[in-house]
């Protein structure tokens, strides 16, 4: 059923008792043209674009938990395309463009809100770095502007501009950036894929990858063997675990990233703001809660919970930037497992193993990439070759030396 003002009126007339489930819960078929492992944002987006753009509808998405139980429902919902490197920037800009038309495209309200993202700077050197990044963005046709302190004071009067150690001198702003209701992204893609014939199979854990003469022919699952012509892995957090089933070792470590939300308060913070000293980012959700986060905890982890020192660190950053935050109480905190790649950039590529495709290594920037990741991964699977937009996100770049290290930290996963 297409959602519209008319379907709303029709269902209101019958007391909202006749709404149908947004997607089916089918049993797996014996085999598919394409199987995607991982029913998170990227996996569902891949299935959606496989069906919509490439006409491949005999597709299954296998999810070990319930739909959207991983990072798609655990992030801080920020979208932006303010990247520096040529291999990253056009990709993230494609993603932002897809976000801009997404709700009409998949007929679901994902509450895309282009409220603007401001990255604060605190020294002359940092301003130069942000000016450079802004110029790189503009060369790629992406919007970017430097906001001086005077204008910033009008926009965000409650920032701690005169901090003795880290005064706020201004910010790099991308007005087209913003936030999206993250769960609705998973639901919208799932519904859109399901309407086009894709089977979204929940509570179906992949336990093995079957290969014949080297080629992937299917997966062993908790619901039995399912055959496939092509297999795409989009199991962020557990990418290495799943890849090992095919004998593939990856340049990825799993780390825990925490996020926090405060009690709901009245509208206060219009934009997404990031602190340039520590690593801190904050926005206000439509329910009124302040949603914020910081760095990963720093140790390898598969547990979806973090530790107290990072909680303290994040809150310290927040208070240094906005002292009035001290009056808000933290309501909830949670953790998600990140694929931390060794250069801080993702991988969307075919692998050396026939019929096996990989979408992994999103570090903690995966949410904003969801539509373009699915779009490019679908292209890579359908054509057995990467699209120009993900041509730099190669798996073999670590071997060949063409790494994409935005922060120039080197091969140290917990620093990206």
């Amino acid at each position, binding site marked *: 059923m297409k959602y519209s003002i008319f379907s709303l009126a029709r269902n209101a007339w019958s007391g909202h008792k006749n709404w149908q489930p947004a997607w089916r819960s089918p049993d797996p078929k014996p085999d598919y043209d394409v199987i995607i492992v991982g029913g998170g944002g990227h996996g569902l987006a891949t299935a959606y674009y496989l069906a919509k753009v490439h006409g491949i509808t005999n597709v299954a998405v296998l999810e070990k938990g319930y739909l959207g139980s991983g990072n798609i429902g655990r992030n801080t919902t920020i979208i932006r395309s303010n990247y520096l490197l040529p291999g990253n920037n056009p990709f993230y800009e494609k993603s932002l463009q897809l976000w801009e038309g997404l709700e009409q495209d998949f007929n679901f309200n994902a509450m895309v809100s282009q409220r603007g993202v401001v990255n604060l700077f605190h020294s002359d050197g940092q301003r130069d770095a942000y000016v450079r990044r802004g110029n790189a963005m503009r060369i790629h046709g992406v919007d970017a502007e430097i906001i001086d302190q005077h204008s910033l004071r009008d926009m965000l009067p409650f920032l701690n501009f005169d901090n003795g150690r880290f005064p706020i001198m201004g910010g790099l702003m991308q007005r087209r950036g913003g936030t999206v209701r993250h769960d609705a992204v998973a639901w919208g893609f799932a519904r859109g894929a399901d309407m086009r014939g894709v089977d979204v199979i929940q509570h179906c854990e992949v336990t093995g990858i079957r290969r014949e003469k080297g080629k992937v022919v299917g997966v062993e699952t908790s619901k039995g063997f399912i055959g496939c012509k092509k297999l795409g892995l989009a199991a962020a957090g557990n990418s*290495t*675990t799943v890849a090992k089933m095919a004998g593939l*070792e*990856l*340049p*990825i*470590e*799993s780390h825990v990233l925490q996020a926090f939300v405060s009690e709901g308060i009245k509208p206060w913070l219009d934009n997404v703001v990031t602190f340039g000293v520590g690593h801190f980012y904050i926005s206000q959700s439509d329910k009124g809660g302040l949603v914020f986060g910081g760095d990963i*905890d*720093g*140790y*390898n*982890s*598969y*547990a979806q919970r973090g*530790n*107290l*020192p990072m909680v*303290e*660190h994040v809150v310290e950053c927040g208070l240094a930037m906005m002292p009035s935050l001290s009056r808000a109480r933290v309501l909830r905190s949670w953790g998600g497992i990140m694929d931390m790649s*060794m250069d801080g950039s993702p991988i969307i590529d075919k692998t050396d193993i026939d019929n096996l495709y990989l979408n992994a290594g999103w570090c903690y920037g995966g949410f904003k990439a969801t539509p373009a990741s699915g779009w490019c991964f679908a292209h890579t699977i359908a054509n057995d070759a990467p699209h120009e937009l993900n041509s730099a996100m190669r798996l073999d770049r*670590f*071997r060949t030396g063409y790494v994409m290290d935005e922060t120039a930290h080197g*091969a*140290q*996963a*917990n620093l990206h």
Partner: protein
Amino acid sequence: MAYLINCPYCGPRTTDEFYIKGDASKQRPDTIGDGTLDTWHDYVHIRENVRGRMAEHWHHTGGCRQWLVVERDTVSHEIYAVTPASTWATSRKGSSTAARKKPARKTAARKATGRKTGGRAKT
């Protein structure tokens, strides 16, 4: 995760005193011997990313500034053992570097013992 790391030199200290370097299972290839592209690629980039018991290099930056190996569980976050990195490296079973460089191993072992008996553990 356990909040306290039992440093063999300083006793129980909070985790935020430590810098975490990561996976301790990787062996640096010999520059001359097995320093081919593949072995270096494997050493620098490829990670086993253990789900379960894992050994990591931790540096007690805010304390004794010694390198340690923390063995812990990446799912339950339980900590099993904290060992001085030198002791851990020389006692590794089936360690190819240790087998290849027997004299070096002895020296390192002596150094580690010396450090232990040097009184720092008591302070």
